[in-house]
């Protein structure tokens, strides 16, 4: 294309509302041509101070109040003011309409990049990916957060800030264990939520009283007979269990647990799809903006600015760099998405061998398929190609504390591809990343103590926060809490709260 048939939307770097509107329209049109389905966008222009507020609240326009958000805010403010950290260009929320923030300081090119990335990239991911479709309710989340904020504020008025804060502290400590992995909750509106909350309160309190039944058990049952465990099966959703069964909690405390649980559930898919989500959004901003350029709608200067920030976003420092802090999800995601397109459009013999189903297929459909039906773990397992492994020069390091040296177990070669792919997929499996801890029994006939088991994976122990988290668990449960780490059925460590003698495990 020659420069003569260029009619750029804008030439300067300043943005205006009209320009943003125009860019959004053009990008939206191209996105639709590529078959991206999105929620309606709500683009909000905010200042950098507001961006810091948004940051501290994980982007939520409404959030309940808690000191830890104040801590995050102070941290961000401190780093930002000292110039150690630039603010992200964008925050986008999985809601309907999909709220995306643009910072007023950004140039026009950056705003366009953010629109392409957030409003069409992330937005279509939220709308399409099965995890988001199954586990989150984009329609009701903002309403729900509003309900949560008001409810917690009301509790603070009634019971005091400190009492509420301590429940929230405990819930936050267990937040990662407040997720239903299999059952899907159904959506309800905020008013409905409020109405139900009142009903739930009354009903739950009745249920709990079961634990308190003081009528003496029959003699036969008392002796001889082996007691039936209180739980039919182990419970992995600790917060859910506490909400429903903890004997001493007040109704409002149960409701707070529920709120934290719901929030955890809402964020759960994001934690499982980081690579895919960022990769998808990055791939699309790259594709959409290049398309804008090809159609003569943006200038060379625009492209230079865009490419510069695109390049820094997908930069992956090598493992021995001082800036290295793990694999950059933008890099990995973008590399895989782009490679998928390449496999469809220009398959090599290697691709034909590794991906016979998709080599040479329609790339738009294949990418849509990948975006809709996978999470990070399975996406990598399914689509990480030898080429990407070679490009990123991925290698596996085996660290076994029984051996004095660490071993390079696989590198980017013919023998290593499958191992690298498998290990990398495992690295994104939340089940491996977070210790597997479940409630196995409640001593209903004795002191109502709670027993938990940590099933160790590859002998990996719990870290030094365990005792502290157990204290929070104890606070919610109200009776003794015991945790055992098991490796192949053998107890390797025990934790108790309140602590028993000197058994406490030190690291």
């Amino acid at each position, binding site marked *: 294309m020659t420069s003569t048939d260029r009619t750029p939307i804008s030439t300067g770097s300043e943005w205006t509302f009209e320009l*943003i*509107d125009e860019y*959004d329209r053009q990008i939206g049109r191209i996105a639709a041509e590529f078959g991206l389905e999105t929620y309606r*966008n709500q*683009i909000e222009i*905010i*200042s950098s*101070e507001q961006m810091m*507020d948004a940051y*501290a609240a994980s982007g939520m326009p409404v959030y309940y109040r808690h*000191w830890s*958000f*104040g*801590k995050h*805010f*102070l*941290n961000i*403010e*401190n780093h930002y*003011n000292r110039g150690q950290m630039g603010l992200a260009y964008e925050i986008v929320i999985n809601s309907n309409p999909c709220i995306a923030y643009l910072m*007023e300081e950004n140039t026009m090119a950056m705003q366009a990049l953010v629109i392409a990335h957030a*409003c069409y990239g992330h937005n279509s991911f939220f709308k399409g990916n099965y995890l988001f479709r199954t586990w989150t309710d984009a329609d009701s989340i903002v309403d729900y957060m509003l309900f949560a904020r008001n409810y917690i504020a009301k509790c603070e008025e009634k019971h005091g800030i400190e009492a509420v*804060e301590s429940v929230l502290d405990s819930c*936050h*400590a267990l937040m*990662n264990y407040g997720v239903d992995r299999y059952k899907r909750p159904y959506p309800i509106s905020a008013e409905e939520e409020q109405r139900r909350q009142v009903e739930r309160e009354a009903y739950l309190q009745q249920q709990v009283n079961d634990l308190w039944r003081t009528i003496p058990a029959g003699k036969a049952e008392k002796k001889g007979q082996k007691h039936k465990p209180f739980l039919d099966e182990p419970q992995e959703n600790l917060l859910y269990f506490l909400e429903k069964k903890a004997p001493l909690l007040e109704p409002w405390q149960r409701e707070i647990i529920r709120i934290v649980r719901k929030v955890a559930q809402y964020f759960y898919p994001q934690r499982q799809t980081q690579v895919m989500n960022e990769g998808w959004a990055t791939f699309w901003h790259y594709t959409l903006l290049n398309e804008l350029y090809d159609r003569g709608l943006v200038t060379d200067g625009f492209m230079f600015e865009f490419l510069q920030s695109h390049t820094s976003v997908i930069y992956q*420092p*090598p493992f021995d*760099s001082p800036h*290295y*802090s793990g*694999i950059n999800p933008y890099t990995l995601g973008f590399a895989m998405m782009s490679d998928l397109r390449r496999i469809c459009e220009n398959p090599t013999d290697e691709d034909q061998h590794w991906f016979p189903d998709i080599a040479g297929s329609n790339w738009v459909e294949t990418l849509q398929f990948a975006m809709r039906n996978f999470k990070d773990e399975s996406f990598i397992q399914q689509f990480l190609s030898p080429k990407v492994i070679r490009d*990123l*020069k991925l*290698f*596996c*390091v085996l*660290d*076994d*504390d029984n051996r*004095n*040296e*660490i*071993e*390079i*177990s*696989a*590198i980017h070669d013919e023998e290593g591809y499958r191992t690298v792919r498998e*290990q990398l997929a*495992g690295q994104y499996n939340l089940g491996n990343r*977070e*210790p597997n801890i479940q409630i196995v029994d409640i001593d209903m006939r004795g002191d109502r103590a709670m027993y938990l088991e940590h099933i160790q994976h*590859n002998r*990996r*122990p*719990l*870290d030094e*926060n365990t005792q*502290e*988290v157990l204290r929070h668990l104890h606070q919610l449960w109200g009776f003794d809490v015991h945790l055992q780490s098991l490796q192949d059925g053998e107890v390797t460590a025990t934790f108790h709260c309140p602590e028993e003698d000197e058994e406490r495990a030190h690291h």
Partner: protein
Amino acid sequence: MSYLIDRRLNGKNKSAVNRQRFLRRYKKHIQKAVSDAVGKRSITDVEQGEKITIPSQDVGEPVLGHGPGGKRTIVHPGNREFIAGDTVPRREGGGGGAGSGRASNTGEGMDEFVFQITQEEFLEFMFEDLALPNLVKRQLAGSDAFKTRRAGFSSVGTPNQINIVRSLRAAHARRIALGGPKRRRIRELEQELAALQAREPVLRDNKRIAEIQEEIELLKRKIEHLPFIDEFDIKYNLNVKDPLPSSKAVMFCIMDVSGSMNQATKDMAKRFFILLYLFLKRNYDHTEVVFIRHHTSAKEVDEEEFFYSRETGGTIVSSALRLMKEIMAARYPTSEWNLYGAQASDGDNWNDDSSVCYELLTKEIMPFLQHYSYVEITPREHQALWHEYQQVKEQFPDCFALQQIVEVKDIYPVFRELFQRRPA
């Protein structure tokens, strides 16, 4: 189509409450940092904000995670020379390679949590739990302070004060009142009409029926023509201005500038005065300061001269007290002003003079004062002045205080000691 919204005008301090909660939770840490800072700072910037540092583990939010150990495989990018099967010595503390991307959970790698508090917050923490002894006098001091207060409703006012509910209620009442007789008449006529129409068609008085119908029409039209809202329906919110009592304080700073006071001692005195001044300023709407310096004779001076000019000579403390008394009588009637005295000295005084000071203080000054504090800045033994002052304290235990300061770092603790909030 997207919605495009400009949110920049919305409040930016959404996190203010959470921030306050954080500060409240870590009050102890911050107070300690503030107290350290007061000791270290130069005089001119006692009022600045402060960088607060808290050990990370104290602000941690614990979650369950894996500790080091066991067997794990981590995938890293950027391989250069390794081939499969290579072994490498384990790096100290690294657990093999730089972090595995999990460290962010716990915020490891940062030993300290650092943040900034504002000047306002700094003062807040600095003077927390301190109270001014003795009640504060408040005075209706004329014109400058008012508070507007709602005082019911009025039928006159400006349009922005229209009370819509009241106005519409009045209009509704008026319409009911004015339409009442007509509606009653309509009901009567309708009854009559019904009675007439109930008769056999031949017996009907058609002329009367037409008359009645016409009258009903007329009445209905009249009711319709009642104005929906009339000027005298409109009610306005009535606000009245109440004058606010304001509190005024004057602080007398008295300092010995005789030869025995060196620059370092004066510096300490100044810090003490500044603390006191900031404290008073927070508690009163208006605060004035009177500087009196003395050697053998006393003089009222401005701030610059008070702290920086040097004189030599002997010391007669009573000269300053006498001057203070005169200024009090001339300019600060005790009915309006809250009076505070603060004196700093190294304890030297003309021997005979100390008892004069006692007389002056107990008889002519202390009865009018809210509080008088004396700090003696000396590492040496106390002299006559201190002992006389101790007797003053016995007479006025509530509003007289004396303390000794040896080093700069004593100042803030001594200050806190002097103004510690006491159970009433």
